[in-house]
């Protein structure tokens, strides 16, 4: 019987894998803990939630027996807005409308501009691209007041227009991503479509947009998460309760109940608000990771 000599490389590889695994596991725990904490608190009785959060007694999170306070969820949702359930339904509908429109607008406009910069030859193309990238360096706070004044003069305040219309003008980051991706698509495809008789718009819609699916997935998911969670925009432009999105409604809820008195309800409402983002991420996870990878390699 022979015994294979143990290679030091294999041992080193095994240790490296173990370290990597441990690091990733630790990272996962750190990332998931706040979510689990939210989930835990949202299921607690008011007293226990108070002790676990304001009291700082983290042991409450694991203390047995556990009372599953499912009633926290309907209790929280009925207390959003002035009319039970309707306040939440309104905010949910507003969030869905704004987010859907912004996602569609961002994908369409960013891919169109990215396509034009990547494929069309026109004077000043390079300069425009650099100028567009430069807007990424501009903090949002700088443009906040001028934009508010502009939209107020247009009479758009307390409508969803200030939140939706700018999305139809593209997003510099996503334009950059689309441009990088489209630049990798063989020129012959565009030429073949031209010879086939298609216009630039037709080529963008029928050829480029379907090919850009990984970038579109990442653009849609990022935009969805950003707009769904956006608080500042709706807070500035949407003043009435009927127009409020979930993020604003949640903030009103927190102000209404002082934040700490009904922390279990606040967590329940927050969790419901987060749910679409979590579900979307889980559903589009494959495309999302693929898109990030492609962006990284092709970009």
């Amino acid at each position, binding site marked *: 019987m022979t015994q294979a000599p143990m290679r030091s490389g294999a041992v080193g590889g095994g240790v490296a894998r173990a370290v990597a695994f441990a690091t990733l596991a630790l990272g996962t725990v750190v990332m998931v803990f706040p979510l689990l904490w939210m989930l835990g608190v949202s299921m607690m009785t008011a007293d226990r939630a108070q002790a676990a959060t304001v009291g700082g007694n983290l042991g409450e999170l694991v203390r047995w027996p556990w009372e599953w306070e499912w009633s926290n969820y309907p209790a929280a949702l009925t207390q959003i807005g002035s009319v039970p359930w309707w306040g939440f339904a309104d905010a949910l509908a507003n969030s869905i409308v704004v987010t859907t429109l912004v996602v569609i607008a961002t994908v369409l406009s960013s891919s169109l501009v990215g396509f034009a910069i990547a494929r069309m030859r026109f004077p000043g193309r390079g300069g425009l691209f650099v100028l567009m990238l430069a807007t990424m360096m501009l903090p949002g706070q700088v443009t906040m007041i001028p934009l508010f004044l502009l939209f107020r003069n247009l009479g758009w305040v307390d409508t969803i227009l200030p939140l939706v219309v700018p999305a139809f003008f593209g997003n510099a980051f996503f334009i950059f991503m689309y441009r990088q991706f489209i630049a990798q698509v*063989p020129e012959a495809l565009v030429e073949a479509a031209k010879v086939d008789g298609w216009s630039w718009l037709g080529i963008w819609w029928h050829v480029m947009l379907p*090919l850009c699916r990984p970038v579109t997935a990442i653009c849609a998911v990022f935009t969805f998460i950003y707009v769904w969670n956006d608080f500042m925009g709706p807070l500035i432009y949407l003043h009435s309760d009927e127009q409020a999105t979930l993020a604003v409604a949640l903030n009103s809820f927190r102000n209404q109940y002082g934040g700490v008195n009904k922390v279990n309800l606040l967590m329940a409402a927050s969790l419901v608000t987060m749910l679409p983002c979590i579900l979307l991420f889980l559903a589009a996870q494959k495309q999302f990771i693929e898109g990030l990878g492609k962006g990284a390699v092709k970009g």
Partner: protein
Amino acid sequence: MATIELEALGKIYPGGVRAVQGASLRIEHGEFVVLVGPSGCGKSTLLRMIAGLETISEGTLTIDGACVNDLPPQDRDIAMVFQNYALYPHMDVRTNMAFGLLRRRRFPSAVRALLSPDYAANRIKERQEIDTRVLSAARTLGIEHLLARKPAALSGGQRQRVAVGRAMVREPKVFLFDEPLSNLDAKLRVEMRAELRMLHRRLGATMVYVTHDQEEAMSLGDRVVVLKDGLVQQVAAPRQVYEQPSNRFVAEFVGTPTMNMILGDMEARATGMRFRGQGIMIEGVLDAWKPFIRPQPRPVVLGVRPEHVRIAGGTGLPATVEAVEHYGDRMDVVLHCGDRTLTARCAPQPLQEGAQVAVTIDLAQTHLFDPDAAGARLRA
């Protein structure tokens, strides 16, 4: 079918690079013209100018008598087969082939279509027409069974057929091919060559084909256009290009192995004429040479194709066999003769490297060129 006329066509890229200069050519109805030349000679640029994918810097391009200089590709009624096939990866073969026709529907605009009272009936009719044409082209090319597949699931040859099919369904005035066989292996290339030839015969369409492979050019074209550095060197039937090359470049570019070129002097002798150069001397009488013979030696380049260099058993120019390449039905022999190397093509025979042989050159099959850079042909 259409005629294409190029009048002093030129392409100047930004930066002043001249890709094509003064290209003049008339392509007749149903003709198969092959543009051939080494890399960077401007052949693809010329084809792309015909397609409308490159702007025309100088000259005029007419298709069926109408100037198309400023027409976009979609308005020229042409179809093009690209080197890398350019099949849309997200569409199946059927959609790939129908894609050009979908644009040319009676109602390309959805709004106009919806406003039409016969919208539904027309739409169905159009769809049926498109399907019929796609199916007919697919049958011709033997790709009927591939219609539901995506390009990624096809072999190189199948993709090539789909690309040709996509051009066929459009029934364009002109077919343009940009090195469509260069990505295929040697065997498939020969097969596809034959298929393209048959297709041209069946469709009778005007076709312009670009290749860097002179064998492909010679086997496919009714006429061959040889290009170098953006300049048209010769436009002629393949046989004429081979047998009567217009200059040294064409003579050396066309034919494998390349033509032997010997630099020397030609002079009149009492017995006829004599060529002497690079350690090689040939004497003889040839009427075709007479116009170029002077009593004083005149510098010329003598060209002779390898099949006209004979390895003789008896008298001739003494030569040493340097290398032998066997091809089964024939062999190429590299010989050291005088001060230079000659290549001979002959029937298989037992020749060893290093063997001493005698070489004769068939004077009637030789070509004379100017020794200057242009290297123009001296014999008609």
